[in-house]
């Protein structure tokens, strides 16, 4: 216990019943606040009524708490924030019945609402909670329409209501994917996007009627989709634009000329470093794939692992894209790789603090949860993760995860399989009796 911290603990570990919010002080921690700064040794984190009231070096303050947890130098961080994911929308990717990621056969695009399809008991939510992700942006992906629909901001706690904000953002695909959906050319996706926004900005009539829905393949934009875009045109709902090529990025930014109220976020952005100054000047944040370095297609010939570092140096706000990973739980690994990049002459990485911010406070801020999630600071949500090592290092995992100050059960299908088979592949009785 730090002598400089005057603790008046009223109860010691007596009420550590899981799944209930508790006030606590975590001491002797390597504290990461998530705001871009470097880790703080011998730090303290205080949680009261489900919120952070203090995080940082011990400053001699006094407080009362239910419990003091001495974590013995362990790393303590805010919960990670993953964006843009499909968490909660899919059980098994290749099992179409269990997969709500894309509505390729639907007559809707922009009107689709992710929040309605979310499964709070999805194994992927559990697996990612156990990996330290406590909040996420999640959305369907563009399928029948260039518009993905309206994504949601979710928490990953154990209760049955993951949605924090439904219809939080709209997503649209430009570039090669958008072109393919819109009719085979970028010209078509731009014409469609601009027409849709123009129409949405002029909508005066009441809600569209069901006979406005047409299922024909020629219909690129139904009335309900237009209705959904009204909040995009006014800037109330951010528009996430999936785009990779430098010229496509500039065209996306140029939308603001005709639609000045748009609240843009760029997603993907593999060639962002080529136009980083323009992105920074536009003040548009970016959710970028962290380690793409291959010319996977003609819209990302200039892809490099230095993309995020170079954009960050140019003043762009950049989060690491969770959607570009095999699984969002690799976010810390990607962040760690960007730190390693600093040692490569000619490459541009991130500092440790910047890298951590790119998977915590920055995605939270882009998702409209600045100062609330992805940070440990007074007033922030009590999302705290205690790790068994440097959280960006390979193989480090959370030992405890708190969401809104509530300790989370980290059991998953995977952990149960692990426990069943850790005694060896075979037992005296079939494994089926071991549960």
């Amino acid at each position, binding site marked *: 216990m730090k002598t400089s911290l005057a603790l008046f603990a009223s109860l010691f570990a007596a009420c550590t019943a899981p799944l209930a919010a508790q006030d606590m002080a975590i001491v002797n921690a390597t504290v990461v606040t998530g705001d871009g700064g470097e880790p703080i040794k011998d730090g303290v984190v205080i949680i009261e009524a489900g919120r952070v009231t203090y995080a940082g070096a011990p400053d001699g303050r006094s407080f009362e708490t239910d419990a003091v947890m001495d974590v013995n130098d362990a790393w303590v961080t805010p919960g990670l924030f993953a964006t843009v994911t499909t968490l909660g929308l899919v*059980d*098994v*990717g*290749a*099992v179409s019945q269990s997969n709500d990621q894309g509505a390729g056969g639907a007559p809707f695009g922009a009107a689709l609402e992710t929040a309605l399809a979310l499964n709070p008991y999805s*194994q*992927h939510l559990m*697996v990612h909670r156990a990996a330290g992700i406590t909040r996420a942006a999640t959305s369907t992906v563009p399928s029948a329409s260039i518009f993905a629909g309206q994504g949601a901001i979710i928490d990953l706690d154990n209760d049955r209501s993951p949605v924090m904000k439904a219809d939080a953002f709209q997503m649209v695909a430009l570039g090669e994917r958008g072109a393919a959906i819109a009719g085979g050319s970028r010209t078509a996706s731009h014409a469609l996007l601009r027409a849709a926004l123009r129409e949405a900005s002029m909508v005066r009539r009441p809600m569209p009627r069901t006979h406005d829905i047409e299922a024909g393949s020629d219909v690129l934009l139904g009335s309900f989709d237009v209705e959904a875009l009204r909040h995009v045109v006014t800037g109330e709902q951010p528009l996430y634009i999936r785009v990779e090529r*430098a010229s496509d990025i500039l065209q996306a930014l140029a939308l603001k000329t005709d639609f000045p109220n748009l609240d843009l976020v760029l997603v993907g952005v593999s*060639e962002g470093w*080529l136009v980083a100054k323009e992105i920074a000047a536009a003040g548009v944040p970016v959710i970028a794939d962290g*380690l*793409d*370095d*291959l*010319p*996977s*297609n*003609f819209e990302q*010939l*200039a*892809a*490099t*692992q*230095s993309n995020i570092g170079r954009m960050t140096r140019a003043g762009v706000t950049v989060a690491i894209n969770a959607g570009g990973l*095999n*699984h969002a*739980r*690799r976010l810390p*690994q990607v962040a*760690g*790789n960007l*730190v*390693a*990049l600093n*040692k*490569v*002459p*000619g*490459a541009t990485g991130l500092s440790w603090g910047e890298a951590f911010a790119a998977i915590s406070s920055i995605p939270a801020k882009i998702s409209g949860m600045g100062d609330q999630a992805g940070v440990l600071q007074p007033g922030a949500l009590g999302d705290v993760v205690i790790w*068994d090592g440097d959280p*960006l*290092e*390979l*193989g*480090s*995992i959370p030992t405890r995860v708190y969401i809104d100050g509530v300790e989370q059960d980290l059991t998953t*299908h*995977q952990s149960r*399989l*692990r426990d069943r*088979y*850790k005694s*060896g*592949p*075979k037992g005296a009785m079939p*494994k089926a009796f071991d549960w």
Partner: protein
Amino acid sequence: MGAALAGVAATATATAKDKDKKKKDDPPEFVAMTEAEGPYASTYTPYPGVATALVGATVFDGAGNRIDNGTVLFKDTKVVAVGDASLSTEGYRVIDGAGKFVTPGIIDIHSHLGDYPSPSVDAHADGNEATAPTTPDVWAEHSVWPQDPGFSRALANGGVTSLQILPGSANLMGGRSATLKNVPARTVQGMKFPGAPYGFKMACGENPKRVYGSRGRMPSTRMGNLSINRQTWFDAINYANDKEAKRDLGKETLVGVLKGEILVHNHCYRADEMAIVMDMAKEAGYRVSAFHHAVESYKIGDLLRENGVCSAIWADWYGFKMEAYDGILENAAFLHQSGACVVIHSDDENDIQRLNQEAAKAQAAGRRLGIDISDATTIGWITLNAAKAMGIDAMTGSLEKGKMADVVLWNGDPLSVYSRPEKVWIDGALMYDMMDRKRRPVSDFELGQPGEGDVK
């Protein structure tokens, strides 16, 4: 003309007999090279190198040993000696490796670089001859595009010096694999690993039955998968026993497997299916070298050990398809605990750049359960074990005297996320140097394009 014919008529019978005799004894007019004569032979020869001594580094030799403050000497394409600081470095260019680490060149046993190259446009999709459920007649090397920029990323970011290019998994029998040295070349022959045996790709489960079942043809079930496989093996056995059989490209590959000259690499996720495949191998009389993907290997570590089959696996992929639903982080650690062979593979143009990191994650999952797997053993998962399963372990995969000087100098612990390959040698030639921007391959495709020669 007429006179000549008349003269021949009297001895017509004798002449016909002579002609028959001639047919049997004389060489035929048209003859293809036989398999034994090695068509499409490797033209690779090592590039120039200098005698090099790496000193002061922590050495993981790939065979499970660790030497602190070690010395690695290589010269004339071969490893000369590996030992402690007492080894003489006279006559060698000395590179100070203090604070750094040395491993053998990393080996990826499962890659599609070249046959699914970047850019991944339809015109480049050359990995699955998905027009028949068994295509043992195709060879992956005939699809490899040597200009795939992915090779250079695997080298520079992953320290990969050898890799096996496999056909895809649409087919039950996908064809022959190609084992390559990760050197830039104009031709695939210029990359082929001299002396490496061929591999043979097979696939269990969902993919073949989905691809062909969706076309209303066999196989549409797992039992259909097995039926076709078994009949194909029986046909190959009949072919092998038939001295009069006409040459058959596919059967030559299958017979190569039966003879043990071609190594089977079987894409298979589920434990129960792997057990069936091992019985099929016994039935038909061949060996499975490695199951690939094998996310459920941990359920049958004992069977895999007894059958001597390696599992080439990911560290953390799971849940993307039904047969991957039971993937767990502890797969490698549990296999290790069972005494079964572990190989960490990529099957991915991105993960091949970080096989060391995948191995580290798999090691850590064991550590959390008290399964202590040494760093040196973990490095073996991406070096010597891969080489063994590919049949090239006598030539590479570990730092041992006389082996190919395939060497990576890392700027820190290769099992840390904060480390990168600093220098990579293939057969003693320096093919990548992080500190020298020109010592980095740039493929023809990338010339004159945005980002040419960037650090990537």
